[in-house]
C-alpha cells in the first residue's frame, strides 16, 4: 500500500511537469468513469455503473430508479437513455473464467429486475390511459425478447454465433418488434375497413422509399468496396516498397561500395537473390519451420559464410524434431566441409523425405580426399557428421577419392 502510494505520488509529480495526463489519471483512480458495468449488473449495468461512478450504494440507485418509475415513469426513460448513451466497460481479458463463477445467483435476480421493469412499464401505460388488455401481449413479448437478447448477448455468442448471424438475428428481432408494434397499433386503433387501406398506404410508402433509396445504397456500397480494394492495394504497394528499400536498395548500395571486392559482391548478390526469391515464390514460412525450409535456410547460411553456391533440391517435407534437426545439422557440417576443402564453388544438396526415411546428399565435384588418411581427431567428418548421425540412430556415408569429388550421404529414420 505504502509503496503504491509513493509510486502514485511520484508518477503524478513527474507528470505534472510533463502535461495534463496524470491528473486525469489520478482523478479516475478516485472516481471511476461513468460506464455501464459488466460485472454485477442486472439489466444493462446502468445502476451499477452509476453507483460505482458516484460512489454510493447500488441499492440506493436502483431504489431511486424504481421510485422514479413508479412515480412518473421517467425512471424507465432515464434508464433507457443511460443504456443507449453510456458505453459499457470493455470486456476483461479473463472473461470466460469470470463468467460462470458469478452466474448462478444472477439469473433469478435478473428475472426479478425485468419483472420490475415490466411492472414499471405497465404502470406507465396505465397512467397514460392504455388500459386495454390487448396491450399486454406486446409488453410481455417485448420483455421476453429483451431477456432473450440479453441471454444471447452474454452466453457463448462469441463461440457459436457468427458476428454476421448475430447481426441478422438482431435485425429480424428488431423488424418483428417494429412490425408487431405498428400492426398492434393499427389493429387497435383502426377498424377493419380502414386497416386495409392503411396497410396498402404503408406498403406504397415503403416501396417508394425503397425505390428512391436502393440505387443510392448500392452506389454507396460499391464506393465502399472500391475504396477498400484501393486501400488493400496501396497497403500492398507500400509493403513492396518497404521491402525493396530494406533489401534490394540496401544491397545495391553495398555492392557499389564493395565494387573492388569480387567475392564480397558475389556474396551480397547471392544472398539478396535468395532473400528475394524466398519472398516472391515461397509461401510464408510456418512458425518454427519445417524440414524443407530449414534445409534451405542452412544452405543459405553456408552460402553467405563461405561464398559458395549451393543448389538445394528438396522433395517432400516433414515437421522438425530432434532427429530431423540432427540430420540437418550434420548436412550443414558437410556443406561447410565442401565449401572449405573441395576447392570448388558449387555444392549440390538433395534432401528427400519419403515416409519416415529422411535422406540428405551433399555433393561437390571438387578434389576429394583419401578417407582413410583423415586423422581420427579431425572433428568435422568424424564428430560433427558421422558421430552426430550415429548418436541419433542414423547413418552417414562418405564417398570420396582424390580427384573424384565428395558425396556425403546422410540417412535417418524418424521413428
Amino acid at each position, binding site marked *: 500500500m505504502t509503496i503504491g502510494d509513493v509510486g502514485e505520488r511520484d508518477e503524478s509529480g513527474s507528470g505534472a511537469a510533463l502535461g495534463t495526463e496524470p491528473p486525469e489519471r489520478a482523478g479516475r483512480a478516485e472516481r471511476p468513469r461513468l460506464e455501464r458495468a459488466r460485472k454485477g449488473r442486472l439489466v444493462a449495468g446502468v445502476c451499477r455503473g452509476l453507483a460505482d461512478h458516484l460512489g454510493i450504494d447500488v441499492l440506493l440507485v436502483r431504489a431511486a430508479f424504481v421510485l422514479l418509475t413508479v412515480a412518473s415513469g421517467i425512471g424507465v426513460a432515464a434508464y433507457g437513455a443511460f443504456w443507449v448513451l453510456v458505453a459499457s466497460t470493455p470486456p476483461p481479458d479473463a472473461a470466460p473464467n469470470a463468467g460462470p463463477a458469478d452466474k448462478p445467483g444472477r439469473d433469478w435476480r435478473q428475472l426479478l429486475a425485468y419483472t420490475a421493469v415490466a411492472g414499471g412499464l405497465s404502470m406507465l401505460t396505465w397512467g397514460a390511459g392504455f388500459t386495454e388488455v390487448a396491450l399486454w401481449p406486446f409488453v410481455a413479448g417485448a420483455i421476453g425478447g429483451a431477456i432473450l437478447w440479453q441471454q444471447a448477448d452474454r452466453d457463448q455468442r462469441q463461440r457459436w454465433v457468427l458476428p454476421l448471424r448475430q447481426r441478422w438475428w438482431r435485425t429480424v428481432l428488431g423488424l418483428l418488434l417494429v412490425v408487431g408494434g405498428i400492426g398492434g397499433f393499427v389493429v387497435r386503433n383502426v377498424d377493419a375497413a380502414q386497416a386495409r387501406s392503411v396497410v396498402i398506404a404503408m406498403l406504397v410508402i415503403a416501396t417508394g422509399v425503397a425505390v428512391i433509396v436502393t440505387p443510392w445504397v448500392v452506389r454507396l456500397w460499391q464506393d465502399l468496396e472500391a475504396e477498400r480494394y484501393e486501400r488493400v492495394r496501396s497497403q500492398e504497394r507500400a509493403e513492396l516498397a518497404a521491402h525493396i528499400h530494406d533489401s534490394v536498395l540496401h544491397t545495391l548500395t553495398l555492392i557499389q561500395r564493395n565494387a573492388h571486392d569480387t567475392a564480397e559482391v558475389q556474396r551480397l548478390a547471392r544472398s539478396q537473390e535468395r532473400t528475394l526469391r524466398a519472398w516472391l515464390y515461397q509461401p510464408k514460412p510456418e512458425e518454427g519451420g519445417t524440414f524443407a525450409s530449414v534445409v534451405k535456410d542452412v544452405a543459405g547460411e553456408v552460402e553467405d559464410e563461405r561464398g559458395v553456391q549451393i*543448389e538445394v*533440391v528438396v522433395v517432400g517435407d516433414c515437421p522438425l524434431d530432434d532427429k530431423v534437426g540432427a540430420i540437418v545439422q550434420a548436412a550443414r557440417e558437410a556443406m561447410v566441409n565442401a565449401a572449405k576443402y573441395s576447392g570448388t564453388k558449387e555444392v549440390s544438396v538433395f534432401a528427400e523425405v*519419403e515416409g519416415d526415411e529422411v535422406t540428405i546428399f551433399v555433393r561437390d565435384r571438387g578434389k576429394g580426399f583419401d578417407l582413410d588418411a583423415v586423422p581420427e581427431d579431425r572433428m568435422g567428418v568424424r564428430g560433427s557428421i558421422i558421430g552426430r548421425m550415429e548418436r541419433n540412430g542414423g547413418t552417414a556415408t562418405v564417398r570420396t577419392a582424390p580427384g573424384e569429388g565428395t558425396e556425403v550421404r546422410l540417412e535417418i529414420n524418424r521413428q
Partner: protein
Amino acid sequence: MSESPLRRVVLVDDHQMFRTGVKAELGGSVEIVGEAGDVDEAVAVIRATTPDVVLLDVHLPGGGGIEVLRRLTGSVPSRFLALSVSDAAEDVIGVVRGGARGYVTKTISGPELTAAIDRVADGDAVFSPRLAGFVLDAFAASDVPSVDPELDQITQRERDVLRLIARGYAYKEIAKELFISVKTVETHVSSVLRKLQLSNRHELSRWAAARRLV
C-alpha cells in the same frame, strides 16, 4: 554429337542484357540465327528461321513462353528449351507441359548450356536438378491409385535416375553409377518427360490449372 554442323538457335528473352550475356557464354559453339524480346516477335522469328533449338524464357511480355509454345505447337520442327530465373513449380511444370523438352535455370554455365542445347536438338530431354525434384514430388510413390498407370507413375529406374539428377549428377556420371549407358539414361529421362507432359496426375493438373493450360 559434335560432328554435326553448329546448332541453329533462336534466343527468346525480354532482357537485351541477358541475351547478350548468353551469346557471349555460348561463344561459337552454336549459331544464333535470331533473337526475340516478346511473344509476337518470337513467333515470327521462329517461323521465319525454323531453328533447331529455341532458348525460351518463361516470363515474356505478351503471355510468356507458354504462349509461344501454344501458337507454334505442331507448326515448326524446332525444339524448345526453357530457360528461367523462376523457381516456382507452376512455371517449371507449366512450360514443360506446354511442350518444352527441358528446363534449365539461368545460372547454368556456358558449356553446360551448349550440352543441353545439343541434347534437346537430338530429341532428348534436359532436366535441371530442380526440375527432377519437382517431378519426384509430383510423382511421389505414396499416392492414390491412378487412372493410367503407364502415364501416371514413374518406374523405380526412372526414379533412381531423377534422384541422381537431383543430387547434381551429370548424365555420364549417372550412367556410371547405375551401370547403364548414357543413351539409356537419356531414354529414361525422355520417358519421364513424356509422362510429365501427358499424365493427368492430380498434382500436374493442379499446376496446369494454375497456369490455365489444361
